[in-house]
């Protein structure tokens, strides 16, 4: 569904992504794992259009979307949950959700209901300012907000960042649930264990290159991955 070919991204003189090629098949969960500075977030930001690639092409369902502006890319059906949640702190939960659907001009009633069914906690806090939510609730809101654009692909940057293990488990359950309902997911994670258990397919990134590929289970049992990322 989403195809990345020979993608290179430079920040000034530094090449953060050095030519990676991978694919996200429809209705699957794909994860990119790797250490800090491996180029995971840069890859996501490039796909979202926030950073322009130096080389390479990005195709969504056969259509070239390389270098489009972020709003065009969102309207094509790719949405990103940014790292560190980035909810709009002084706006209410409901307003946050509505901004997620900014580029849509149809009725939002059903989608708000859908998000509230996925996250009953958000419904309780509908009128509360997003900045007053707990970290876990903010992450739920960030996911819900991304879903409001009715994406084909949802990209998540470190959804487990700074959350308690039990909350992380809840978030990953939700990710699986969303995926079951038909949304393709591209997940970037430091928490390799959780990510690989959830993912259909995984890619290991090291300093801007893909060094290992396999299904989630294969990578979980791979000795190198175990040593480097799982700590066992």
């Amino acid at each position, binding site marked *: 569904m989403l195809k990345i070919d020979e993608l290179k991204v430079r920040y000034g003189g530094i090449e953060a992504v050095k030519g990676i090629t991978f694919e996200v098949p429809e209705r699957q969960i794909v994860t990119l794992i790797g250490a800090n500075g491996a180029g995971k977030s840069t890859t996501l930001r490039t796909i*979202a259009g926030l950073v322009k690639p130096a080389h390479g092409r990005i195709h969504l369902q056969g259509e070239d979307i390389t270098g489009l*502006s*972020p709003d065009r890319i969102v309207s094509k059906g790719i949405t990103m949950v940014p790292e560190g949640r*980035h909810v709009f*702190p*002084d706006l209410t939960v409901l307003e946050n959700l509505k*901004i997620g659907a*900014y580029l849509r001009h149809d009725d939002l*009633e059903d989608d708000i209901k859908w998000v509230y069914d996925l996250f009953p906690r958000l419904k309780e806090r509908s*009128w509360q300012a997003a900045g007053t939510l707990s970290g876990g609730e903010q992450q739920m809101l960030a996911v819900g907000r991304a879903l409001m654009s009715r994406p084909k692909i949802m990209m998540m940057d470190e959804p487990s960042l700074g959350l308690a293990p039990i909350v992380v488990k809840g978030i990953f359950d939700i990710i699986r649930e969303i995926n079951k309902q038909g949304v393709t997911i591209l997940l970037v994670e430091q928490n390799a264990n959780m990510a690989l258990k959830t993912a259909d397919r995984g890619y290991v990134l090291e300093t801007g290159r893909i060094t290992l590929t396999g299904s989630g289970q294969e990578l979980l049992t791979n000795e190198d991955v175990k040593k480097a990322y799982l700590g066992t």
Partner: protein
Amino acid sequence: MIQDQKSKKGAVTGLLFIAIVLLLVVLLENLSAILPAGSVPAVLMPTSQLFTVLKKGAVYSLVAVSMNLLNGFTGLFSLGQAGFMLLGAYTYAILTVPVSAKDTVYYLYGGSAVNFSLPDLFGGVDTPAGLILGVLLAILLGGCVAALFAYLIGLPVLRLKSDYLAIATLGFAEIIRAIFQWQPLGPVTNGANMITQIPTFNNFNITDANGTVILRLSTFFPFLIAIICIVVIVMLINSSYGRAFKAIREDEIAAEAMGINLAKHKMLSFCISSFFAGVGGALFAMFVNNAQAKVYTSTMTYEILLIVVIGGIGSISGSCLATFLYVACAEWWLRFLDSATTFASPTAPNRIAFMVIFAVVVIGGSALLIHRERRGSNQVWKQTLVGLVAILLLGWLAWFAATGELTLPLLRTGFRMVAFSIIIMVVVLFFRQGMLGDKEFSDILFARRRNAGKEATK
């Protein structure tokens, strides 16, 4: 669904409120004619300060709200408001000087290069059609010129952030002011001289054949225009565009990731804000009966900024409320600070006003300080100190009231501005939220109902 009903109800209440305000303004203005002659209190006479305050307040509240749209709702800190007001004022003035008056107004340049006048096109200032159509069109064009300049200046400037944007827009306002005073542009802008003889608020008073006023509408007109513009801004803020503006204010990264085009929306907000500042500038020209570049200094921008900060950044009703308070203080209530007053007679009105204001400031200030200390650590000596100072000051006031004669030492021309500086320092230090924070007046008024709504959604 619940939301729609609520907003519909809110709109009806709002419209009703606006209608009442406008009616009250007309009534207040014409009370002097309705009441039997002789029994009219001085404050209600048409020349009273009250109407100056109301007119200027209406104009300034529009400009303050337009600044709030940009600074409070989009998070772009711009200080170019006076420049855009100047553009609106000059556009209005240049287009409305009657053709017959051009030679007198532009006598230094041997007449104007603009050889038409909008009111004249529709039959002249003295006919209702000429006045209303000509003036409204000129005001509208004033806004459009300001918006156009905002677009051009916004292309390079909106890439800047926070302080840098403020500096750039401030510079822009100063440059515009200099250009409009430039001699070679004299045939259009009348150089450094003011453009006079333009239609003013007083032209909207309805007179009979002898020139006697039947119905005064000179305060009603600025109120009407300002209210229409503010309603448009409020509707914009409550639309999905307004939500996008707020999203940009809160978090640019997330807003961009949600598909909000940052450049486009910042430009939109900048141009709309400037448009209404231009409209405000045109109204201001009508208020002061002329257009003169040297009036639109950065001091004027600071006045507006002061109002926005005091009212609460991100609150429309706060801005309106603060405008009228500020204008009333500056033009009326605190005027006595500007002259070395001897409070000779114990019943002199300014003496009573001074004592009331002094007592309120001392009691309110000390109560607040003591309360703040109580919330912090239990430093009793600080509370005692504040209390002692307050008692001393009040004691002085009592002595002053008893002896009845005193020349206050500091009062002289310009002291009013010192008082304002102190007020803004106090606001910034202790009430950073301003009067209403980012709430609206209706939020506070209907707080209970809203809470009930919260319960219902659970």
